[in-house]
């Protein structure tokens, strides 16, 4: 409460270099974040997708694909176009229904749950072709992302004072926190439809962050950006990974970025997983080279 009523000018002096402090506090209320200095936390599997198969008519989009995401790692999924990467993300987040296979988040079965239940459990994603709420402003989009974590019912909302008022201000503070982190202060009031593509991608990421993610799935976050913007985005991803201690799954085509920031890489080709491992292994894997990277 105190942070909200305090004058914002004072707040700036006490900012951490990362930002995201309020968000981290919210996450910490629900589960303790591991000690950053302890390198021996064993890598537990957070998300497990086993034996996923899905076909659209005769087209087999995914064929018995098995993916695991461990705590605190950055996993990159790469592959040529049409390999089924976005499809895999859609199945995991509950948007598509797989014909066979199971998905487990923290050993809880989420395979046939509805998408909003999965989002409440902490599996948040961004979209390849941006899916923002085009009529709302940036700040409203991010507060809308807070939806499952806002706790007042509609009757209290209609009466508004005092409960909803306090809650709205609190959520605004958290959203402003995210905006600080993503350096979107200058556009916070603009309607999203007016923004440039790169900024929209950042708002999309902000909205995914607002959901207090347990794991973040990013679908081509650096598509269509120049080198500067890519470096910014990579910096954001690494910051989120280190500061919030959440694993990040990344679908990406830029090999430079992938090799730099990913801890592990999974390669898909026409719905089959053809390789998995750290970047050095994948770079020299002959199957991957012939399917995707090209010789030399």
């Amino acid at each position, binding site marked *: 409460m105190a942070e909200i009523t305090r004058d914002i000018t004072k707040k700036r002096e006490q900012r951490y270099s990362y930002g995201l402090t309020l968000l981290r506090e919210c996450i910490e209320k629900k589960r303790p974040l591991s000690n950053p200095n302890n390198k021996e936390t064993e890598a537990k599997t957070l998300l497990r997708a086993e034996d996923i198969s899905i076909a659209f008519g005769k087209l087999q989009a995914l064929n018995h694909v098995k993916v695991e995401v461990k705590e605190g790692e950055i996993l990159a999924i790469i592959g040529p176009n049409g390999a089924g990467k976005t499809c895999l993300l859609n199945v995991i987040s509950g948007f598509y229904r797989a014909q066979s296979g199971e998905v487990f988040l923290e050993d809880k079965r989420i395979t046939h749950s509805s998408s909003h239940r999965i989002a409440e459990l902490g599996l948040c994603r961004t979209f390849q072709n941006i899916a923002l709420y085009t009529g709302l402003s940036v700040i*409203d989009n991010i507060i809308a992302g807070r939806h499952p974590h*806002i706790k007042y019912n*509609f009757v209290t909302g*209609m009466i508004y004072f005092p409960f909803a*008022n306090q809650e*709205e*201000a609190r959520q605004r503070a958290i959203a402003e926190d995210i905006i600080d982190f993503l350096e979107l202060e200058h556009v916070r009031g603009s309607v999203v439809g007016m923004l440039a593509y790169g900024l929209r991608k950042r708002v999309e990421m902000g909205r995914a962050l607002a959901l207090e993610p347990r794991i973040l799935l990013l679908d081509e976050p650096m598509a269509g950006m120049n080198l500067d913007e890519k470096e910014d985005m990579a910096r954001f991803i690494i910051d989120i990974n280190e500061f919030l201690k959440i694993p990040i799954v990344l679908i990406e085509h830029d090999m430079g970025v992938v090799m730099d920031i990913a801890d592990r890489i999974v390669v898909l080709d026409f719905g089959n997983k053809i390789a998995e491992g750290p970047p050095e292994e994948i770079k020299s894997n002959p199957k991957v080279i012939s399917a995707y990277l090209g010789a030399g």
Partner: protein
Amino acid sequence: MNINRPCGTFDRTYFQAKELYRTPLRKTLLALLIVGMYLLPFVTGDYGISILTLICAFTIGMLGLQIITGYCGQISIGHAAFMGVGMYTVGILQRHFGLSFWVCLPLAGLVPMFIGMMFGLPALRMKGLYLAFATLAAHFVIVYVISNWRSVTNGTDGMWMKRPDVLFGIDFKSDRNYYLLVLTITIIMTYLATNLARSKLGRSFVAVRDNDIAAEVMGINIAYTKIMAFGIGCFFAGIAGALGGAYYEYVNVEWFGLDDSIWYLGFLVVGGFGSIFGAIAGATVWKVMDEFSTLVTPLTETLLGGVAFYASAAFSLIFYSLIIIVFLVFEPRGIAHRWEIVKRSYRLHPFPY
């Protein structure tokens, strides 16, 4: 840079940033407006009071439709029918159970809410126009049930309703006191609707309207959101019906036909989607047009050669639909958008943007 705030207004807390009426000037103007509306009936005659009462009642109904269609993007062609259900609820409860108006009023909101949710349930699971068809069907079924359930609703003869009982010594038989009551209820409902728009549920309405696939993946339960939007909208419609019916002290099933539902939608478009001001503007324009057409119809009758007893029916049909279509073609965002442009040009004068 927020151009809706005058120069030099800085927000130091998030509470200030959220405020709708930020500056003392705006708060004063709002207070003056409300006081003015309370004092208005002492200035205008009975005719003015009747128009004002109806504008207030229809504003509540329009707010309901704004919640369903403007905020949540669901098209409802049965809104007048749910108003009728509200009217008849009060009539039935007063006639058969002798309940006082004060008890009937919340029920007049809840009954259409549940009936609406019942009709809307299958359509709200699906995306697209299906709610429009479901409400169209609901309209015909409701009209049939009301017309033919003679024992309860007195069929097509209509029912008598009583005004509210004496409260705090105020007698509501007089039109002026009744207007003040309706105005109070309208202000309360507008307050509730405005807060709904900026609360969590209201944001989820807009999210579902803008991008419902993304909304689902972002943790919003779209079925719940759509059903709540439709239910709350029908609640408002029922209350509007109850207040309007009690004004006339009589309710008849012929008052809410398919035409009225379509005018609701149409004048909501004229007023402007997605804003509370738009709903109020739409209701005002509608009622003013009603009075205008009552005045003008005798002229058209003489124009068409005197035989034209049908002119009044045709006049409203043709005239209103042309107005709505012209607005849709030239200013699809309605009067509210025009008003925003006026305010903005005043704020930014002499710059264009």
